């Protein structure tokens, strides 16, 4: 349980959030505008800020930017509360440094679950140094949104590192693969829950939106010099050798090697675990699928072969 700062210019909204959060054991402070929110964030040191986007004068984006711009409050998680379908809002929110989004009207259980997991994360990152905690918190925030991807990032990091080592890559590349495992889908923070967690088939428009996670992630990493080698992994992990992948339709060697490796381990993990739109496949079927993708000319057969021999050796 922690201290939550609720920011909303409509008093009824602020009171509603306050009574839900108080009943769940948190202590709540409220602010009625962006300027007060920034002031309170500095003096109260909340563990989490829950902020409406649409407020007169200093709106939620600007207040978020100011909170994230000050050293004392930079690591305070900020959740922006936006209208249901507004993708533009999300992209603006990411630019402002927001950690997560909630859609109005919100579901009570979802709200409380999200707040709890972000508070857990805050306690965890309080113990890490800045650079590392930014990376870990971004990655784990995404995972927290989608219970189906539980452990996905960690597994990818582990698979990618052993694949990189088996191929004799240098330690720089192996380190990039590890971080890439955590960060490859970080751009999903910009994808609305309605699409990210949709149980059925995606429409063309929704799939087009989903593809944007590569570009959004690349842009997020662009801010951090230490992630130079990780960016190509984030952007290109869905490319295919024959040019039918996304976002850029790159072909062959134009796809960075580290991204090709991440693509292989990502497909394998996605196939062998449950997703909102499908059940898990048995390992043997996933192996067949990867071989089929190599045969189709989507992936390098030698890389797939190396990975599959690792799978057979290390994952009984």
């Amino acid at each position, binding site marked *: 349980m922690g201290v939550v700062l609720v920011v909303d210019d409509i008093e009824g909204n602020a009171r509603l959030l306050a*009574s*839900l959060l108080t009943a769940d054991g948190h202590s709540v402070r409220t602010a009625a505008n962006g300027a007060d929110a920034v002031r309170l964030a500095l003096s109260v040191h909340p563990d989490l800020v829950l902020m409406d986007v649409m407020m007169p004068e200093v709106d939620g984006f600007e207040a978020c930017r100011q909170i994230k711009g000050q050293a004392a409050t930079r690591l305070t998680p900020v959740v922006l509360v936006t209208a249901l379908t507004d993708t533009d809002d999300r992209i603006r929110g990411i630019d402002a440094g927001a950690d997560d989004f909630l859609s109005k*009207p919100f579901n009570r259980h979802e709200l409380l679950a999200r707040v709890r997991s972000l508070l857990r994360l805050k306690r965890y990152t309080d113990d890490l140094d800045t650079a590392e905690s930014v990376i870990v918190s971004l990655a784990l925030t995404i995972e927290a949104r989608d219970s189906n991807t539980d452990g996905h990032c960690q597994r990818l990091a582990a698979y990618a590192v052993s694949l990189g080592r088996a191929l004799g890559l240098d330690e720089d590349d192996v380190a990039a693969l590890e971080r890439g495992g955590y960060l490859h889908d970080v751009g999903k923070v910009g994808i609305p829950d309605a699409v990210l967690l949709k149980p059925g*088939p995606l429409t*063309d*428009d929704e*799939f087009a939106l989903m593809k944007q996670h590569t570009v959004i992630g690349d842009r997020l990493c662009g801010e951090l010099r230490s992630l130079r080698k990780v960016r190509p992994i984030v952007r290109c992990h869905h490319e295919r050798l024959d040019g039918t992948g996304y976002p850029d339709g790159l072909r062959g060697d134009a796809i960075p090697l580290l991204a090709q490796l991440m693509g292989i381990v*990502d497909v394998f993990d996605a*196939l062998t675990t449950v*997703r909102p739109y499908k059940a898990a496949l048995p390992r043997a079927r996933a192996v067949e699928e990867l071989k089929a993708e190599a045969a189709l000319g989507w992936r390098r057969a030698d890389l797939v072969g190396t990975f599959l021999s690792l799978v057979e050796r290390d994952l009984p």
Partner: protein
Amino acid sequence: MMPDDKRRHDFTNHLGIILGFAEVLLTNMSPEDARRSDVEEIRKAATAALALLAGMFPDPITNDTQRDSRQNP
């Protein structure tokens, strides 16, 4: 933001407050409370109004296609 969006947003806000507090009351009332059914009516009406509002301003996304494992994000 267009004036229509703004109006929908405000409307959703107010309905969300009504719905939210109805839910808070229901959680805090004992199961035998005679006023439960009254609050239940408030909750139902607010839910219906939100659905109506969503119907009046539908999402632009409509056409359906198949999603297969290749769409893995």
